[in-house]
């Protein structure tokens, strides 16, 4: 979140505020970037957030498996967010907690707390493309969106569930990403994401993520009730639903350290 310190981007945001995006004459790359900056900018200022996450994993045969996670996150100026997640289900990992300091550039700092051993383990964060808890969501799909993580290209405008959408292609900067590109549909009105198509390292269609049941919090922060990820190559899917969203609950830096990780439960 280097927006305010980067003079170029500040200028860009100033321009965006003054002029509708579509009116700026620019290359598809510049326009893709401008849309993403505006989307990020429109959601700034949420400060902190708490929510309950439920995942339903489905295999090709329709067998289901459930994950329940409580999460807290903290907006950090000039960097990626901090987050603390605690697992409630499945039962054998109950109490396992995960602390992450994400960074716009470079590796994230991540720690895992294993309640049976009372052990805090610093873990390598290079594993961005790996599945989260056996689901169809990769770790990188769940980390906070930062401008610096991608390069961009505007493709076209298209009708979508949220009215008219910008269709923007995003190319991950990180060589450890599991994707060559993501194609993202964001609506003109509120920059809400409605759909993302993921392409694997061989540029074959891999997954599609759709967003459902948007609600507006504190007059500007749009959050979905449900995100559905379908893997086209394996036939598996994961529904990620959120409830009990709370914003500006007064969390600070002090709520995100190894001590809070150990008693997160």
């Amino acid at each position, binding site marked *: 979140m280097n927006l305010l310190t980067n003079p170029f981007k500040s200028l860009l945001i100033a321009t965006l505020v003054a002029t509708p995006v579509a009116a700026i004459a620019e290359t598809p790359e510049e326009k893709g970037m401008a849309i993403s900056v505006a989307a990020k900018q429109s959601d700034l200022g949420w400060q902190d957030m708490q929510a309950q996450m439920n995942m339903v994993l489905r295999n090709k045969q329709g067998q289901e498996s459930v994950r329940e996670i409580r999460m807290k996150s903290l907006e950090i100026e000039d960097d990626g967010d901090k987050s603390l997640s605690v697992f409630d289900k*499945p*039962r*054998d990992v109950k109490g396992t907690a995960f602390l992450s300091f994400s960074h716009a550039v470079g590796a994230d700092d991540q720690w895992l707390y294993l309640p049976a051993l*009372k052990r805090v383990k*610093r873990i390598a964060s290079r594993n961005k493309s*790996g599945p989260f808890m*056996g689901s169809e969501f990769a770790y990188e799909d769940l980390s906070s969106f930062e401008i610096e993580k991608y390069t961009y290209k505007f493709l076209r405008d298209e009708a979508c569930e949220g009215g008219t959408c910008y269709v923007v292609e995003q190319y991950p900067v990180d060589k*450890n990403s599991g994707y060559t590109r993501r194609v993202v549909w964001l609506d003109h009105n509120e920059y809400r994401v409605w759909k993302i198509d993921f392409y694997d390292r061989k540029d074959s269609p891999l997954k599609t993520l759709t967003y459902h049941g948007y609600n507006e919090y504190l007059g500007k922060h749009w959050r979905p009730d449900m995100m559905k990820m379908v893997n086209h190559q394996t036939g598996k899917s994961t529904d990620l639903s959120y409830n009990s969203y709370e914003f500006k609950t007064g969390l600070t830096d002090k709520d995100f350290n190894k001590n809070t990780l150990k*008693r997160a439960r």
Partner: protein
Amino acid sequence: MADQKALLSALVAAGLATAQPLQAETYFEISGKVAAELRGFTQDAQFADQDHDSNLSLIAEPEFYWEWNDGIDSLTFTPYLRVDENDSERTHGDIRELSWVHVGEDWELRTGIRKVFWGVTEFQHLVDVINQTDGVDDFDGEDKLGQPMINLSLVRDWGIVDLFVLPGFRERTFAGREGRLRGGLIVDTDAAEYESSAEEKHIDTAVRWSHTVGDFDLGAYWFHGTNRDPELQVRTQGGNTVLVPRYVQMDQIGFDLQATLDSWLWKVETIWRDTETEDYFAAQGGFEYTFYGIQESAADLGVLLEYGWDERGEDASASIQNDLFFGGRITLNDAASTEMLAGVGYDLDYDSQSLIVEASRRYGDNWKVSVDGRFFSADDPADLASAFDKDDHIQLTVERYF
């Protein structure tokens, strides 16, 4: 022990009484597990009275949790019970946790019986010194007895400082006459001796600092009190030769470091221990490297290499004095959380080897099944590991979580 437990109970009760509920709402939750563990030994036993080739154990470990004052105060109670088919010493109960935690702005006070883990390496936990090993549960030293403590934890910009007062010492548990995975002589735990005249009532103290600096996580501590590792002394009791544990006082300085660099984890732990009879250094260090998404799958392969060293060499009372460890861990990252781990230990002084294989996965939402194999080859009678030479076994564990 009973006195300390009474003292701690009083402290916890006092804590509960002083922490007046700001709001009437108390959150309560029960969770935990029950498990059955079946061992099959592949060879006849080495010593007399160990006349069984299979063994069944049942384990229960529920956890009761209360939270009030919006999470500022909490109480956890975790009793533990194991019932063993053959070894009466292995049939035992413990209070793994009975503690009250009060959280302040940048501090926490944790009072009661608890477990604390320190360290970074995988094949030996050298710096992990607060809790006594529950030696009958398993021989890997990872099971611990609950330790009475008052622990004040301070969060500062320059790290976390933990201050410990440890009233009451826990004696190590050892396999009984009928138990396998023990030495040739029985350890008579009822005859334990102490250097300190306060015996098991000696109040130990410890202070630890830990911090994260970029890619480095480090910790250092000083511990003053009763050595958790007993000296085992040969004695004759009523015509029987037995081992009597003797617990001496020690000062120990420990240091641990992990560097997390891309796919590499570099780890080192070292201690300096000073007792009435000896002072020495010991260290364990190595790395873990992970290959992510092997063969275009979601599976990860971790490769581990560690070396353990003890300044006392072959005179060491520890079984790890010049030992090399190699391990491989496969994590499928599937919905059932399937994992496999294999580890080989090689003693460079005695030429003995051990092989440990572990595999586990979840069934349904609440069941977990593990299969472990442990194999030993140690022919030199001077090698502490030679006691396990005939105790190769395969262990099946079924756990039900609730």
